[in-house]
């Protein structure tokens, strides 16, 4: 860990009891869902992390507790530092408070997570799907969602496959 990151990690630990782990000089701090807004406010206002570089998630299916990690990759331009906050969330229908009031990056990135993982961000001003059509069922980036494929149609089975294809027909 870089020297200048140590007080920040200590601060997170003191205020939120955040455990941290290190790998290849990267620091990941674990925060509880209900504390994430407070933690990000602290990092932005006190420690000058101006940029929320990435907001994404990982699915640990079949593990259910925690099933997902919501990941906040933060960058400080003033201090040239990075830190990653991870929010472990339980169960199949997780809820995390929105961070749009702190970083507007969340406006679209949280919609993307809703779209792809089905993680609900409480208080998001515009909770719609962003990349997929409104009527899509399921959340494609979850590990239990099949990769899917399209059956190749040949002249001998064209009609047969066409009948069960899920697109709009006459």
């Amino acid at each position: 860990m870089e020297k200048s990151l140590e007080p920040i990690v200590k601060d997170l630990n003191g205020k939120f009891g955040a455990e941290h782990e290190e790998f290849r000089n990267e620091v990941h701090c674990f925060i509880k869902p209900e504390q994430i807004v407070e933690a990000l406010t602290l990092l932005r206002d006190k420690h000058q992390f101006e940029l929320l570089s990435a907001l994404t998630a990982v699915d640990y299916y079949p593990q259910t507790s925690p099933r997902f990690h919501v990941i906040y990759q933060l960058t400080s331009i003033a201090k040239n530092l990075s830190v990653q906050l991870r929010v472990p969330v339980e169960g199949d229908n997780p809820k995390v408070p929105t961070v749009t009031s702190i970083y507007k990056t969340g406006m679209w990135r949280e919609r993307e997570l809703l779209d792809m993982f089905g993680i609900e961000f409480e208080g998001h001003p515009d909770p719609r799907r962003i990349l997929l059509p409104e009527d899509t069922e399921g959340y494609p980036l979850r590990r239990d969602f099949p990769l899917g494929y399209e059956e190749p149609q040949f002249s001998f089975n064209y009609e047969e496959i066409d009948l069960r294809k899920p697109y709009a027909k006459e």
Partner: protein
Amino acid sequence: MAQIEEVSVDQYKHLVSERALTGETMLLNMGPQHPSTHGVLRLLLELDGEIIINCIPDIGFLHTGIEKNMEAKTYQKAEVMTDRLDYMNTMGNNLSYCMAVEKLVDLDVPARAQSLRVILVELQRIASHLVWLGTSGLDLAAMSMFLYCFREREQILDIFELVSGQRMMTTFIRPGGVWRDVPVEFEAAVRDFIKIFPKRVDEYERLLTKNPLFIDRMVGIGILSKETALSYGVTGPMLRASGVDWDLRKARPYLGYEQYDFDVPVLTEGDTYARYLVRIQEMRESLKIVEQALNKLPMGPVRSANRKFVPPPRSEIGVSMESLIHHFKLWTEGFPAPKASIYSAVESPRGELGVLLEGDGSPKPMRVHMRTPSFDNLAVLPEIVKGRLVADLVAILSSTDIVLGDIDR
């Protein structure tokens, strides 16, 4: 025929103003087939006459599930998907992914490969900016720019074809180095480009930089403040045009960028014209880097000798049993990566291109997230077009330099 559903106000009720519901303002659909949306981007505009009250981007028309597909492939094979993300920056995408894999498995890269990567990625940056300059010239009725810029871009694509056999989807940069060494004609081809290009940039600038018609449509249009840009996670030339000196090549040098002498252009105006100037200047700086890297291109291997991750050369397979086994294992099973997560970012022509890679001990990644800069750069669009005219929207959108393949993934 299937019923085509009409767009109703109900769906967007919470996004438009009260006046749209009473019919006082007009909702207008721009795209996804509009020529100035640079791909398949749909913008729903709420207009009061010519003035934009609200802009609601609708993306996802090009969504191909690349992140999901990459999870089903081994680390080497997933790389071909990265070319298809941002098709204006294929080398850069390869680089960001390979650097992430190298960081995850702790793989070294020989010096010659590093320098080759720098040359190719910087050439790619120029090519990407040329497409941006050409198309935004086209949007602002400077038709000839499009032809001129594509002429120079062609020269860069020819260099890519020379080294990789492919013009766009190169997959030339591989984990542990590059695919193979460059041919002998490479140096002459790059030198030729270095000689011609500065004159050509001067030509573009003569046509545009002080052109009164161009200035009228660019200066003071679409001002993005520093605070808004940071809050939305805007990076790259857009952020630098708003007065933030942040370039990952300078701040966190990778590939040995610290040994090259180049400047990072920063302007404070934050308008469309500033973004134009920053990108023009970046092309010149990139060319400087290409020249320096070519001048001190070291000799030596272009791929790591670590056989556990990098396949052996073809010539060894016929004579060495061990090489044959490694070759077979790597292309059938792949190499395992530790159960850990890393985030690695590079500076793409559009901004911070980050890769979050999480391994689970198997040869396939458990999660690949591409933090694509266009996504966040477009998210800020509604903020900067509010209160402007529809014609300005075209100029602003082209100055954000989005690539829809980068956004939709």
